[in-house]
């Protein structure tokens, strides 16, 4: 093996420029893929983090049919105390769950005493909400952040604050219909202005859950949704599956499921963008495979053609076809290794440089997002393995041709 390695390395050095050019091509491909994965991955992780950590949580539980009619914020599809307790029991016994927040979602009329508009609101228990959506306080643009919200206070979305010319400390009135159709109004003090973000609920205001109960005249512990935060998002599919199975098996008197369970992926449209990013990553990987395949194959075909006489000599003096094949495969393998090693080093240095230079970007209404590309060892190893495997694969055909060459014909070749 060592002999073949030495001979292959010498053969590559024989055509230094060609080896370098081919390796550079592979290097470029590896750099493009690793940088794309790191930048798109960090963008995706950041956006997913923002969506889940500042609003949705990782998993949400609703009464069956709530999500389909979510636009109208129906109060008649709230979970009852008994149902809430069942979910609580499951969540508290699940070690993967970090926290959960009970929410009432409602629509109301928002009045600053001169103008009126519609507002969508989330009514929450501050401690549980902050534990479930830890980035939420980061969305408070103006006003007190500590403690999130107190009874009698409201966090209003940025757009309404601008449109209605409402400032922190102003008094406003919320008027809402309860589920029986009766109307109730309540005065609130604007505690802060909430930054809008992409996705459902991203432009909702926020009040304390006790205020929602009094405004909607809710008796008991009724809520619209339970947002759940996991200790590790990688456990999402496992926890989701177990919750779905356990809650899905609970049926009402009409033998219909009581609960519906959704991951953030089902709720947020950003999941489609994330899927698109994954698709683009796959496409870039396919391009890399094509680059490596074509460049290595081209070089190895040329190498075999140029060394026909040499192959004949090796075969004549007793080198087995397997060893001749091994020699050319080794040349492709070494070129793959060289290109990949260079590409990986350049990529890691570039990622480090991007992190040091603190590049920021805007996405939708969100400005000044900091690009912090990172790449996992799993991604690096998978790309390295793919490139090297393709390099070997691309060498197989020319190597097989060399191994099958008739020694007499090869020796006669000028």
């Amino acid at each position, binding site marked *: 093996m060592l*002999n*073949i390695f030495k*001979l292959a390395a*010498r*053969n590559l*050095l*024989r055509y230094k420029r060609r080896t370098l050019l081919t390796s550079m091509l592979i290097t470029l491909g590896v750099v493009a893929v690793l940088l794309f994965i790191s930048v798109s991955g960090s963008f995706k992780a950041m956006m997913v983090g923002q969506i889940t950590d500042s609003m949705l949580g990782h998993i949400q539980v609703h009464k069956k049919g709530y999500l389909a009619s979510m636009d109208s914020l129906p109060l008649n599809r709230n979970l009852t105390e008994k149902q809430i307790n069942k979910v609580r029991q499951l969540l508290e016994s699940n070690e993967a769950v970090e926290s959960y927040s009970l929410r009432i979602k409602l629509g109301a009329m928002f009045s600053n005493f001169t103008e009126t508009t519609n507002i969508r609101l989330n009514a929450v228990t501050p401690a549980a909400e902050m534990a479930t959506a830890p980035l939420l306080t980061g969305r408070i643009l103006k006003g007190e952040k500590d403690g999130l919200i107190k009874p009698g206070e409201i966090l209003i979305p940025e757009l309404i604050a601008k449109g209605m010319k409402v400032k922190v400390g102003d008094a406003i009135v919320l008027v809402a219909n309860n589920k029986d159709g009766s109307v109730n109004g309540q005065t609130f003090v604007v505690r802060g202005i909430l930054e809008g973000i992409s996705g459902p609920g991203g432009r909702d205001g926020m009040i304390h859950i006790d205020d929602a109960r009094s405004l909607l005249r809710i008796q008991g512990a009724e809520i619209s949704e339970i947002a759940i935060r996991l200790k590790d998002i990688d456990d999402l599919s496992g926890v989701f599956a177990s919750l779905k199975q356990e809650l899905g098996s609970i049926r009402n008197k009409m033998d219909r499921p009581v609960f519906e369970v959704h991951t953030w992926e089902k709720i947020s449209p950003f999941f489609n963008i994330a899927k698109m990013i994954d698709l683009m990553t796959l496409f870039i990987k396919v391009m890399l495979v094509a680059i490596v395949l074509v460049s290595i194959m081209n070089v190895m075909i040329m190498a075999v053609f140029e060394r026909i*006489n*040499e192959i*004949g*000599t*090796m*075969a*004549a*003096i*007793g*080198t*087995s*076809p*397997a*060893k001749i094949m091994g020699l050319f495969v080794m040349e492709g393998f070494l070129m793959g290794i060289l290109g990949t090693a260079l590409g990986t080093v350049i990529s890691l240095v570039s990622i480090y440089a991007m992190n040091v230079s603190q590049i920021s970007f805007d996405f939708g209404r969100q400005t000044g997002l900091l690009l912090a590309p990172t790449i996992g060892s799993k991604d690096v190893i998978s790309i390295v393995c793919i490139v090297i495997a393709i390099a070997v694969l691309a060498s197989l055909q020319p190597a097989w041709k060399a191994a099958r060459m008739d*020694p*007499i014909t090869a*020796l006669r070749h000028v």
Partner: protein
Amino acid sequence: MSVVVAKALKKTYVAGDIKVEAIRGVDFAIEPASFVAFIGPSGSGKSTLLNMIGCLDPPSRGSLEVAGQDISGLSRQEAARFRGEHIGFVFQDFNLIPVLTVFENVEYPLQMVQNWPKAKRQSRVMEMLEAVGMADQAQKKPSQISGGQKQRVAVARALVTNAKLVLADEPTANLDRQTASRIISLMKQMRDEFSTTFVFSTHDPRIVDHVETTFTLEDGRLIRNEIGTGGGHA
């Protein structure tokens, strides 16, 4: 026991509808440690015969024994192994591997074909390089030595595995007169020293003068078998 025994040996090449009989049923035997040449005009079948003896081309009919083994039915892999164990080759164009040094070229069959251990391999290579007078050029690349020196290295490579038989196809064709004479003398010296059989395919009268047996071929037939003194001076 003869090193090579051919009986009713035939070789036919088929290209489409055309059949070419390159060797038309020849019988001969080559004795151990002999210096033998196949001579004849171009197209007479010399190289074909040498290729068959060298397990590079299988016979179409007849039997061919080399080093006591019938080689007519060997597979590609078996033929390669047989060549590596029993046969050395010296080519008209020297055919050294350009990326390897003189030492490594001679070492190649021991390392890549016979898998000798390193220490044994290195002493054997140096022994052969000293025998052909190339020990002082061991670290040079083929591009840094002359044609005659290349052929010396090729002879060392052919003999390094203790081959019973060395096949040399026009080994002096690309050498000047003086160098060719030295190479012939070297090969004869090697024959004497290592008791290796040398079989040539040649037009070169200087080789013919030195061989002990000449087989003359014409149109694929063996027309003459002469046993000479082999004592000519190059």
